[in-house]
């Protein structure tokens, strides 16, 4: 019974974490979107051909610079990155929660999941 109660606590913290991630990123995306529409709302959309990395704001330094210049699309990308980070944060937090429970097997298994995610982050290098 004790383990169930502990699990419940951990899940409640996870719930707050998720809510915070979703709300924060929505706000950032919204603000960025408004700025984007004010600056570019009158232009023509161009999505028929794929430009890949030729367009701005796909790397962290570019996004960071864009935010400092208050660029709408940079802000949207930052919000999107925060959204992507939310489930990853849940994995990181789970490692801590399993460690606190003394469940070494799941500390290992969860770290493995995190390792795979980090590996997929590395896949962009040299792209």
């Amino acid at each position, binding site marked *: 019974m004790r383990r*169930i109660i502990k*699990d*419940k606590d951990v*899940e409640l913290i*996870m*719930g707050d974490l*998720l*809510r915070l*991630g*979703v709300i924060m990123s*929505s706000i950032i*995306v*919204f603000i*960025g*979107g408004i700025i*984007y*529409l004010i600056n*570019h*709302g*009158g*232009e*023509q*959309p161009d*999505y*028929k051909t*794929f430009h*890949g*990395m*030729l*367009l701005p704001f*796909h*790397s962290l330094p570019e996004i960071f610079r864009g935010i400092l210049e208050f660029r709408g*699309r940079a802000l*949207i*990308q930052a*919000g*999107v*990155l925060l*959204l*992507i*980070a*939310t*489930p*990853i944060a*849940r*994995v990181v937090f*789970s490692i801590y929660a399993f460690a606190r429970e003394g469940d070494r*097997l*799941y500390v290992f*298994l*969860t770290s493995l*999941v995190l390792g*795979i*995610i980090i*590996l*997929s*982050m590395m*896949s*962009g290098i040299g*792209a």
Partner: protein
Amino acid sequence: MTILVFTLIILAGSLLAGFLGSMTGLGGGIVIIPMLSLMFGIDIRYAIGTSIVAVIATSSGAAVAYVKEGITNIRLGMFLEIATTTGAVVGALVAVIAPTHLIAVVFGGILMFSAVISFMPQKVAVQPRAESGKRQKWAEALKLNGSYPDARGNRVDYKVRNVAGGFVMMWIAGILSGLLGIGSGALKVLAMDNFMKVPFKVSTTTSNFMIGVTAATSAVVYFQRGYIDPGLSFPVTLGVLGGAFLGSKLLSRSKTEKLRIVFAVVIAILAIEMIYNGLTHRI
């Protein structure tokens, strides 16, 4: 059409997609890709990148509600995540090199599969399943068995079966998720519910938990390849989130049987259109 009008139309479409997706339990991602590529002629790579972000948004949004109920089996989810994330990396890397018309055909096939699944009657009742001998060795070693509160608040214990088979199915679900930018929720629930004999309610919430992590894994690949465009993620993410929120407030899922069938027919039509466009190299 200016960017302003374009953004507003996509926002409205995403709102509807998120609303229907949450009410029918099919998720919002599944109609985002056909909407963007068939209706607006957007390159399918942009559609996939946008969809994966919407999938993360809805999964995280729904998880907030599920966490409170305390029925998600975190250990089961985390163990199966090893399969789905590995699959997602493979899928996303294949997506980068695969020709787009092939992706469109595979996507059409998955749409058709989801439509067929929606026609099948939804399970509501959950009952503990019969135990059987040696298959549960893995479940016990990995501490996958769990319990969940029933309507009266009593805890019902359940045992997980077919761990290896479920693991393989999750790997496939992960590949599809990475390849097509979808959550693969229907396949995940099918694997857990029908294959591993996990109670339906636990399957759906655990699947939702897994969808976020799997989608985030593919999203980091897509982001670094330029699939995720801010001009599209802006209306789609906010629209789908808003729609899902409205859907969760308005109706309980049990009353939506008719809506589910209508939605399934729409998805089937989109599936045919997707396959046709893929085969004729229009996508």
